[in-house]
């Protein structure tokens, strides 16, 4: 994105409301603003081989993080669980199988103690018709959940819900589940939430290949993120999955962040002036909002 463009818009909006930022502070504000807007989120995508990690990333972010294969495990590297970082800080991680993890716990603990604190968001992908979730649960509870408890936004993505039985009932034209499938999806969601000990709103059904449930997933993710990281994430998401709600929430988050930056950097703008600065920036945010 053009750095010059949004800072010019920003200072123009402010001066129109009589708030003139001296040159001395402009550059600092500019660079913080750019940090926020061009923030590259680090997303950790966990899941067993075949759960649909790559398909989900491709559907959400619209670029081939990994070529998707019908048959083979495409994301498998020679020996490691660490599958490589795609562009823009996306990390796909295989959940080790039962028995596989025990012997290498130290190794995993080491790997994740450096990786997990850096993640802004964790998506845990489970294939909707998978009932053998022992390795997911075990690995989540032992290795991953301590970091999640520390506040990293976390969602279980119940993927490939279009394949839940009876799978021929799926409405391919409307990209919607059939009535019996809808019940099964709902039931599975509840079962998985209970199994992982999570609230229902952290288990979200979707079908990446069918473009189903992605808008709702993005809404939930944006809502859960700290306000200064929303813009960076939403910009990465494919435009068709950005709802008005997500855009608005992101815009508001951005506005609040910028107001704080200005109050923080410019000494003559007191904290009590937040409201007027915010008012002055409404038109600027409208402009930024149009970028999403």
């Amino acid at each position, binding site marked *: 994105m053009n750095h010059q463009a949004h800072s010019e818009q920003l200072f123009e909006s402010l001066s129109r409301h009589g708030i003139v930022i001296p040159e001395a502070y402009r550059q600092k504000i500019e660079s913080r603003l750019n940090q926020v807007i061009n923030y590259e989120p680090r997303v950790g995508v966990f899941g067993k081989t075949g759960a649909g990690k790559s398909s989900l990333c491709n559907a959400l972010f619209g670029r081939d993080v990994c070529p998707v294969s*019908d*048959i083979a495990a495409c994301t498998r590297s020679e020996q490691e669980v660490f599958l490589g970082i795609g562009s823009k800080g996306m990390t796909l991680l295989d959940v*080790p199988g*039962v*028995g596989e993890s025990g012997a290498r716990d130290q190794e995993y603990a080491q790997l994740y103690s450096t990786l997990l604190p850096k993640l802004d968001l964790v998506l845990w992908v489970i294939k909707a*018709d998978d009932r053998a979730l*022992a390795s997911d649960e075990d690995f989540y509870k032992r290795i991953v959940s301590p970091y999640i408890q520390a506040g990293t936004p976390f969602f279980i993505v119940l993927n490939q819900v279009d394949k839940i*039985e009876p799978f021929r009932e799926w409405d391919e034209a409307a990209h919607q589940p059939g009535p019996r499938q809808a019940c099964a999806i709902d039931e599975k969601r509840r*079962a998985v939430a209970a199994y992982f000990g999570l609230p229902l709103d952290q288990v979200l059904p979707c079908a990446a290949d069918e473009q189903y449930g992605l808008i709702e997933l993005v809404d939930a993710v944006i809502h859960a993120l700290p306000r200064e990281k929303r813009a960076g994430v939403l910009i990465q998401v494919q435009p068709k999955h950005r709802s008005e709600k997500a855009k608005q929430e992101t815009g508001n988050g951005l506005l609040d962040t910028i107001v704080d930056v200005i109050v923080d950097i410019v000494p003559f703008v007191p904290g009590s002036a937040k409201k007027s600065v915010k008012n002055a920036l409404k038109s600027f945010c409208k402009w930024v909002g149009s970028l999403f």
Partner: protein
Amino acid sequence: MKVIIRHEAELAALLQHQPAFTGIAGLNIASSDFRHWTCEGRDIQIMHVAIIGKSGYGKSSLVNALIGHDVMKTSAIEACTREAQNAMFRIRDGQYLAFADVPGIGESAQCDEKYLSMYQDLVRKSDVVVHMLRADCRDYAIDEAAFARLFPDRASRRKVILAVNGCDKIEPLSRQTVRGPSDRQWANVLEKIRELGPRFAGVKHIIPCCANPAWRLEHLSEAITVMLEEAARVTLAVAA
């Protein structure tokens, strides 16, 4: 091991539904050493077919489809099989063919330990073991580990059939086919089977199929029948 009899009928009823089992009617297991089982207080001889594998692969659905009755409870969501459940078919007095549906592995590490030792016991006493896999999966870590533990050597693998369920759900998904896979799916199934062969080396048959709606189950039934016939021949030879 606790066995619950979910279904009991004459062999003729099974043959009517699945003629591929016809060969079983002619087998005289009285003079052979087909194992004696105590079932609900009765001492009977059983040709025993055990269906094992990961939870959610469709073991219960497969038994239901093989016998033509929905006697085993199935669920797309949660596990519902907690003990061995038999469907029994009377060949003649005191002699039965049984399909045993057992709890699936992969749901919890503690249960797996219990279930795997139950499988070991079951495998030893069974004449045919149908080890189920799914075509639309890529993660076979649990399956391979269980297979290696249950069938440590080539000899023990001779009574194993790999049934690869879910052929209609392999990519590219097609909802137009009423049953079974599309041509493109079938090509992928065949490739999948080539890939599975070396990982489950030594099994007698690898049979792609679908439990629901049933597709190619006559091939599975035929393979089971042939293996039971062989087992009867071997035991007869030993007796003679």
